[in-house]
């Protein structure tokens, strides 16, 4: 396994300090064990920034990020975005608009596993609309494709930014359940930012609240 590779059962240890401007700064310490960690809190509190720091899309001013034995950030070391085994689903989903759902899922699929894309497509039940273009998909279908695309990479850490925000209660609960199941079966860390507490209140996982750029554990 490479230092930035996939490590099943690995925990995530993050300390990130980031001062962007006078209005926004982030100072978080988070230890996440395999399973889903729910990040709650209002919009603009720093949930998205935290996920982006883990993905490598934002560089903290100081701190460290370790996944299992591998250091992704800290000291002199910084593993580039491309080499971190993350599956990232932004709030906008950011599907490639000129590709079918199938091509979206296959685009970054693990090259060492020829069945990774197909499994991901099945796992998140996208097979009925694989040949459709993103603009023709409903919110729920598009979200499933975005998550399938992220997991086809077989990530060590799955990062979901408000994946249920555009879905109705029933669809959101169903998808949240599937995310939990997938995470547990794969033994990976999933960080899921979600302000819709009701959708996943009954599901297992640690709960943290992000407020004004700081993080505090929420008693279950």
């Amino acid at each position, binding site marked *: 396994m490479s230092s930035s590779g996939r490590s099943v059962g690995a925990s995530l240890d993050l300390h990130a300090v980031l001062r962007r401007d006078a209005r926004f700064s982030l100072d978080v310490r988070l230890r996440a064990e395999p399973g889903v960690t729910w990040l709650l809190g209002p919009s603009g509190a720093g949930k998205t920034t935290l996920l982006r720091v883990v*993905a*490598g*899309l934002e560089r903290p001013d100081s701190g460290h990020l370790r996944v299992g034995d591998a250091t992704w950030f800290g000291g002199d070391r910084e593993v580039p*975005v*491309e*080499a*971190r*085994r*993350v*599956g*990232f*689903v*932004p709030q*906008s989903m*950011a*599907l*490639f*608009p*000129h590709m079918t759902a199938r091509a979206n899922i296959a*685009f*970054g699929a693990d090259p060492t596993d020829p069945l990774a894309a197909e499994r991901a497509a099945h796992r998140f039940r996208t097979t009925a609309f694989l040949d459709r273009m993103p603009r023709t998909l409903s919110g729920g279908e598009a979200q499933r494709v975005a998550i399938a*695309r*992220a997991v086809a*990479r077989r990530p060590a850490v799955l990062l979901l930014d408000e994946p249920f925000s555009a879905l109705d209660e029933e669809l959101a609960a169903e998808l949240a359940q599937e995310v939990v199941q997938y995470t547990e079966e794969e033994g990976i860390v999933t960080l899921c930012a979600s302000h819709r507490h009701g959708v996943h209140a009954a599901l297992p996982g640690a709960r943290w609240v992000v407020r004004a750029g700081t993080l505090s554990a929420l008693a279950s």
Partner: protein
Amino acid sequence: MPPLVLSFRIALFATLLAALVAIPLAHRGARRPGIAARIVGAVTTVPLVLPPTVLGYYLLTALGPGSTVGAAFERIFGAPIAFTELGAVLAAALTALPAVFQASRAAFDEVDPSVLEVARTLGVRPLRVFYSIELPLARAGIVAGVVLGFARALGDFGATMMIAGNIPGRTRTASIAIYDAMQSGDGAEANRLALWLTGIGFACLFALGSLSRRRR
């Protein structure tokens, strides 16, 4: 070679050259905006605001027989740049450059940055992101710039005349032939060529309009 055919050939090579220079520069400018990108943007667009004779003058000064580059080129390839078809291609490329650059830059600017970020998190190499994501998403804008650049290159007069002269069959393009025909009192020939150039220009703009309609 008849002036119209020559014009067409020169404009084709010139547009290709302009695209090869402008598209990578536009892409870099869109991804790394800053002072360097602004300078590149101004330099590639300045032919739009300069009189074509000034462009031709610069080309002649930089690449003419008396210049270091021009002399070195002639030593290596056994032929000069000035007063050849190559000179005409360079002049036309310079006039096509602003349209290709500006349209491509706008097209790359419009690509959703979160799509590119996701592509990076998928571990895909930058070159593949460029070919598979950025280029297809910016394609319509780039094509529009290339078509406009081609139309502009096809009609160049001043810059071509300065660097390439007016050699029948070799550098006498349709625009120059119109001037010649008027000078020699051949109104019918001038009229024929002018109508052709107008028709081609109209066809380019019509194609552009159809393209943008299809995009919507």
